[in-house]
């Protein structure tokens, strides 16, 4: 029985499922490091997923869809930036508004453009980047078969996400930009005093999180599912927020935390196949990622400290 659960494609699925979570979580990290809470990740991801699909449907070009998803993510996150930075709205509330707005806009355009609710037509997707052979027999070939199946069967954005996690980690902790970003979230007045534009710094961070969450949406539709369904993000934005907390507001931490969620989800999908053997209704497996999120958020909070000024609007005068 274990043989049919612990297979290379279980780990491959974990990496695949982790990718949209990780991208959004890294976006959340950058955003919160600058002092803006981004509860809108869910809605931004959904917006990216929809516009990505729409552009692929119109042009037949998956890469144009990816670009469209990123642009859509940036655009809708600009609303969040304007509300929370310039208008000093309550950031949680403004984020909630964007989540509902994304649901409404994608549902509205779905009916306007395609004439029906539910799911769009299938689109051309981005396939795996590598296509290595796994020939021969013996132990070495078996090891290679595993490594190949786990690491070299993925679509481009999956690799892009890993690169982004590493680059973002470096940028946040080793560059001048990163130092300023972190200072914005800890003590914006100090940053302001030395002549850095707080609003500008936060705007850039929010737009970056929008780009990443949009890219996460593109991964969902253009690489994984191959179509758009209303409300298809299904809480991933909130799980990404939890991954960001579990990863202690660091990009690589966010990625690893997302891997944990990805693994849990991959495992529950596997276990569902064994329903005849272990008699548990599928809904209980489907609950697992959400239960895990609560456990993780509850378990880690006491020891992880959020950026001090996160969620606090900055008033210059």
């Amino acid at each position, binding site marked *: 029985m274990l043989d049919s659960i612990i297979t290379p494609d279980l780990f491959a699925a974990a990496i695949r499922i982790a990718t949209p979570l990780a991208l959004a979580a890294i976006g959340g990290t950058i955003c919160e490091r600058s002092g803006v809470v981004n509860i809108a990740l869910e809605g931004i991801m959904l917006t990216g997923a929809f516009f990505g699909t729409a552009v692929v449907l119109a042009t037949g070009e998956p890469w144009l869809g990816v670009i469209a998803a990123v642009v859509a993510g940036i655009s809708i996150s600009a609303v969040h930036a304007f509300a929370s930075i310039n208008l000093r709205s309550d950031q949680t509330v403004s984020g909630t508004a964007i989540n509902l707005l994304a649901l409404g806009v994608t549902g509205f355009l779905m009916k306007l453009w395609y004439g029906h609710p539910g799911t769009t037509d299938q689109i051309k997707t981005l396939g795996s980047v590598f296509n290595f052979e796994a020939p021969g027999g013996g132990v070495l070939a078996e090891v290679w078969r595993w490594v190949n199946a786990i690491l070299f069967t993925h679509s481009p954005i999956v690799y892009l996400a890993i690169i982004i996690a590493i680059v973002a980690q470096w940028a946040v902790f080793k560059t001048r930009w990163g130092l300023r970003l972190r200072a914005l979230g800890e003590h914006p007045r100090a940053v302001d005093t030395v002549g850095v534009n707080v609003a500008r710094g936060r705007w850039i961070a929010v737009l970056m999180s929008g780009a990443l969450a949009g890219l996460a949406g593109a991964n969902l539709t253009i690489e994984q599912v191959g179509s758009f369904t209303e409300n298809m993000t299904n809480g991933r934005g909130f799980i990404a927020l939890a991954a960001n907390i579990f990863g202690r507001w660091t990009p690589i931490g966010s990625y690893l935390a997302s891997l944990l969620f990805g693994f849990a989800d991959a495992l529950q999908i596997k276990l569902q196949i064994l329903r005849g053997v272990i008699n548990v209704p599928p809904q209980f497996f489907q609950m697992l990622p*959400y239960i895990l999120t609560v456990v993780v958020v509850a378990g880690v909070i006491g020891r992880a400290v959020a950026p001090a000024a996160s969620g606090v609007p900055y008033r210059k005068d």
Partner: protein
Amino acid sequence: MSEPREGTVVQRRWMTILQKAGTPVISALLAIAVGSIIIWASGYDPLAAFAALFKGSFGSPKAVGDTLLKSTPLILTGLAVAYGFRAGLFNIGAEGQLFMGGLAATAVGLALGATSWWISVPLMLLAAMLAGAAWAFIPALLKARIGAHEVITTMMFTYIGRYFVSYLVNGPMKEPGNIPQTPALDPSAQLPRIATLFSEGAREALPILNLGRAHMGIFVALIAAVVIWLILKYTTLGFENRAVGFNRWASETAGISVQWTTVKALCISGVLAGLAGATEVMGVHHRLFDQFSSGFGFTGIAVALLAKNHPLGVIPAALLFGALSAGATTMQFEAKVPQDIIQIIQALVIFFVAAEEIVLWFVRRRQKEAISHAG
């Protein structure tokens, strides 16, 4: 914003009310204006759309009944979110508590079977209140004890609750047959329609009494609003709730237990959301199934914000959103505008209420005019 100095006491009192009501009213108007622009830009006629919307929400006694029908759960979820906000807590997961409330009411109703309504109805409402509170309790405890963000935890509990209900209506509670739903509740376990209170003769003489599908749940909701208003205004419980929401550190210093107040606030919020689930099951569907709530918990957020978290303000705010959602079907049918526009307008209302500074600009201008007229 400074208090207006000129005018009599009565005038000043009115100015205060204008100040309080001004922002929400203008937020709603701005949202509808932007919604109209979206309708127009999509190639439809905004006037025709809103005419159809109005027809579907107030155009006939039956339409008014539909508005009341949709407003009932929204008053309760709006109160739920507002009560949390007053303690500085964002119960984004009212939807999950609503699901558990609907589940508990159904379970008790089915267990009781055919009996007298004065036994089953109170017991079902009570069960729903307890279930709602229970579903909010773990997030509340996690928030109070270790500061786990209630937005993430209550949201996750919403998904968990939905899957749990889905499991029950597909499994143990499923009625024989292919449809994943529970058996219907006995008539004694249902909230009757308002129209059935009146004799046929009375309804013929006064057609407005033919309120279609509107049910007695609206009175449950209205009573809840008054009770929450009284609690917040006159009791220690309510005072502590407001104090913690206003300044938790000062409250702690003053001897209020912030942790305990947090737990109570989220649980009372859960009680109200649970009631909303009960009224939906008992008044509308008369059984439980997967999709028995069309996001009332989330719309409750918009209701609470529009009401500025005032328990009595929740009533008109819920009526507005109830009317929008009651008229949406007519609008989609007659003006062909996809009814998702309603959700867009809701989101815009939240946005404009949150972005007070845009709206305050309008209010201040109106006030200056009003003061110069009063003087």
